[in-house]
């Protein structure tokens, strides 16, 4: 199993997969998604989990084989690739969040200015088109702003911590 460094989204994603299947493969670290993909194409590693955007070009060129999407629904950019749930692995469901944070103690009024501007950004047709081209889903209206993000961070820590600790044990 290739990964882009301990703590990268590819590492976490593939550990969820390994846990779902019940395997403990050799974990081969790379310095990023690109070198990991190169090693996969060269046949030096067997598999890799990566945000869709990192693999689109190689999948369509036939350089790697796309086996499953780690989401509840098929993805419009890879419509012929089944979901992990269709393959009997619903636990392999991972769409890493990307979010904007400031250091703790940043004035509330500044946080409000930034949150409002970010909200407008997500409604901007140019920005949403670019995210769609990247295979990403922008935050739905009810999940925007500081409070939902605070809750998401806490729930993801609670979900991932036991899985990662168990998977890291030899």
């Amino acid at each position: 199993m290739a990964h882009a460094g301990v703590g990268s989204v590819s590492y976490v994603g593939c550990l969820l997969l390994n846990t779902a299947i019940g395997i403990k493969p050799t974990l081969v670290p790379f310095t990023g998604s690109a070198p990991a993909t190169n090693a996969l194409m060269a046949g030096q590693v067997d598999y890799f989990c990566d945000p869709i955007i990192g693999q689109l070009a190689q999948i369509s060129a036939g350089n790697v084989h796309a086996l499953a999407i780690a989401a509840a629904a098929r993805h419009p950019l890879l419509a012929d690739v089944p979901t992990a749930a269709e393959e009997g692995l619903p636990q392999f469901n991972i769409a890493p969040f990307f979010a904007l944070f400031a250091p703790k103690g940043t004035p509330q009024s500044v946080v409000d200015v930034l949150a409002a501007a970010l909200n407008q950004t997500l409604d901007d047709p140019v920005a949403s088109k670019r995210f769609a081209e990247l295979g990403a889903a922008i935050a739905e209206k009810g999940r925007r702003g500081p409070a939902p993000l605070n809750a998401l961070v806490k729930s993801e820590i609670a979900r991932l911590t036991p899985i990662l600790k168990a998977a890291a044990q030899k």
Partner: protein
Amino acid sequence: MGKGHQIRKHQTTVGGRHLVQTAEAVTMVFARRDFLHLTLGAVACASVLSAALALNYPTRPVTIIVPFAAGGPADITGRIVGEQLAKRLGQQFIIENVNGAGGTIGATRAARATPDGYTLIIGHMGTHAAAPALYPDLAYDPAEDFAPIGLVAEFPEVLVTRKDFSGPDAEGFRRLCEG
């Protein structure tokens, strides 16, 4: 730049230190009740001042730390958000890629930055949810050391295998993995 300079100068003259000194000097002369009034007045003054500063925010370029290499999803997200915030708030938003240790180096730097709105970070599931389980000596607490601004986007993952290593389905994959 000139505008930002003016504001900082204003803050030093009118802000906390000056007001505190005034309050100390006056207590020696006035009764306790007067001191209380004065203190409350100073607090009110300070909060009006901070609101006024926020109305002007941002007055100089803002740095967005991307704790991963250029070209990846965190970087692309940071650049899209940076361009948009720049357009909407009338200041430059500069991307700084601080790569290493699964993003925790950049996240540590952001957690320790001055909390004035001029250093932000694109954090993700790795730096802000997985890191505590993976790095026992993590120098920040993702749930406590940040002021969340908002979720930007989620990037679903795909399982890819080398061309000649794949069962026709997940069951085939499992058998191959088990050798």
